[in-house]
């Protein structure tokens, strides 16, 4: 079986030669490379999808407060907004869910790196919010939901193959930016988009994240990371709304990935996760670094 693809074009021709639809191919490929059955792959996907659900429920059920004080349980606030401007339930849930998962990560909870820990709320937040807000009669079953996670991961594979998914290499465009594109593709798949439109939605989202710096305060995965999860979920929603309205990307997905790589390579080291630039060196950013710097004299129990 053909298991390698570097571009959307590659992928299209592999699907043709294997004579499989996208979701079916991705499961068969995974089973092949892991030496497992398709059922085992699906079961593992379901297990991981449930772990994302547990994380998001946790982030919404109790305020998540981090050791550094940078994460302050904002998802709970968002889940019951009193003064929301946009009251569309899907939109408000998508940003609350994405934030919730990211906060759970920041506070040492159990999550799934997707594609990284810092960006782990974007895809699950977007997809679960969509599923939770379908009117009756339009429910999404497990198989379709699983397929959306597969499609999202497939976009991650394409970016990993030709660029990078590490903030230390490509800046945050490669982490949250990539996750936004992945979420757009997954959501497009849930909305019934065809193959071309799925990757076009990913291109729309990714284009809007190019150049995003990675400048985390005190080197922690909190500021700007946590709130950026909410913003990138909104980015994915916008991308799919455009796509469904027939607004397509002028630059195809594969070329956007090429641009992401080139931009990442030209980003200064200070904007690639070393916490020596951007927000990290603002007066407030530096004050947090000082605050957490000194090692504890001894490890207190229960921290």
């Amino acid at each position, binding site marked *: 079986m053909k*298991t*390698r693809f570097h571009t959307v074009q590659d992928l299209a021709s592999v699907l043709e030669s294997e004579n499989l639809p996208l979701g079916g191919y*991705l499961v068969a490929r*995974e089973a092949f*490379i*892991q030496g497992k059955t398709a059922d085992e*792959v699906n079961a*593992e*996907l379901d297990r*991981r999808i449930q*772990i994302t659900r547990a994380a998001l429920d946790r982030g919404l059920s109790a305020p998540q407060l*981090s*050791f*550094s004080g940078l994460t302050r349980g904002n998802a709970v606030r968002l889940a019951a907004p009193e003064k929301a401007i946009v009251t569309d339930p899907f939109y408000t849930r998508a940003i609350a869910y994405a934030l919730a998962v990211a906060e*759970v*990560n*920041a*506070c*040492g*909870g*159990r*999550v*799934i*790196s*997707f*594609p*990284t*820990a*810092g960006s782990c709320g974007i895809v699950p937040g977007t997809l679960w919010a969509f599923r939770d807000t379908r009117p009756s009669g339009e429910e999404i079953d497990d198989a379709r939901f699983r397929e959306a*996670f*597969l499609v*999202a*991961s*497939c976009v*991650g*594979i394409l970016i*990993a*193959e030709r660029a990078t*998914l*590490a903030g*230390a*290499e490509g800046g945050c465009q490669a982490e949250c930016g990539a996750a936004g594109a*992945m979420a757009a593709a997954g959501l497009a798949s849930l909305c019934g988009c065809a193959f071309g439109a799925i990757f076009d939605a990913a291109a729309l989202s990714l284009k809007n994240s190019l150049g995003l710096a990675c400048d985390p305060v*005190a*080197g*922690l*995965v*909190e500021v700007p990371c946590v709130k950026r999860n909410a913003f990138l979920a909104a980015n994915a929603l916008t991308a799919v709304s455009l796509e469904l309205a027939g607004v397509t990307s002028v630059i195809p997905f594969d070329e956007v990935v090429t641009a992401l790589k080139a931009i990442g390579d030209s980003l200064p080291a200070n904007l690639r996760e*070393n*916490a020596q630039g951007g927000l990290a060196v603002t007066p407030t950013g530096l004050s947090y*670094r000082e605050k*957490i*710097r000194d*090692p*504890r004299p001894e*490890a*207190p*129990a*229960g*921290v």
Partner: protein
Amino acid sequence: MAEKNVSIFDIFGPIMIGPSSSHTAGIARIAYLARKIFPYPVDRARVSFYGSLAWTYRGHGSDKAAVAGLLGIMPEDERLNHSFEIAAESGFTYEIVPVYELPERYHVNTVIIELENAERRIVLRGASIGGGSILIQEINGFEVDLSGELSALLVSHHDEVGVIAIVSHILAANRINIAGTSSHRKEKGDEALLVVEVDSPVGKSIVQQIESLPPIYSVVYIPGLSN
């Protein structure tokens, strides 16, 4: 990522305890492996954080992750957050040391783990290279290159010809496929280290069989993290 197929679960994974795949999950993995490589009672443990880790280990919980790994807690296990208490309850003592100077040949996220008891001691240098992936780069002065993904045998032996051949022969006779071998020696001395990565689990009896050979001092089997 160039040679190997990128799996869906490389993107949608690993399952981990936050906040950082490199500073939390990776460190937990290195410590977990260190304990597999040193499967003996530990009287003294010291964890030194270098580079980026020295500055940010508290906020990332790298210290909790390291202690968890040393206690045999997997990176995805939520008990990781309570590793200090679990250590205290079981009487496991340790020292955490930040080292702000980063030696030039060290990776920017380096941790050195020292474990010892009355008879034995190990010094292990690991690097957390991103996304939760790790490399063990040094064991007791031997420069190695071990990802921990595959199961491996660490064969400490007298530096003489033919050891690789004998070990391969025993593994082949037991239908165990070798994924790769690497041989390491120090500048001086007659001790060498053979690292054999394998595709399937290696049973105790095979380990003992290898260990009973005259040029072999000891054999440690480390089950792969991805199995």
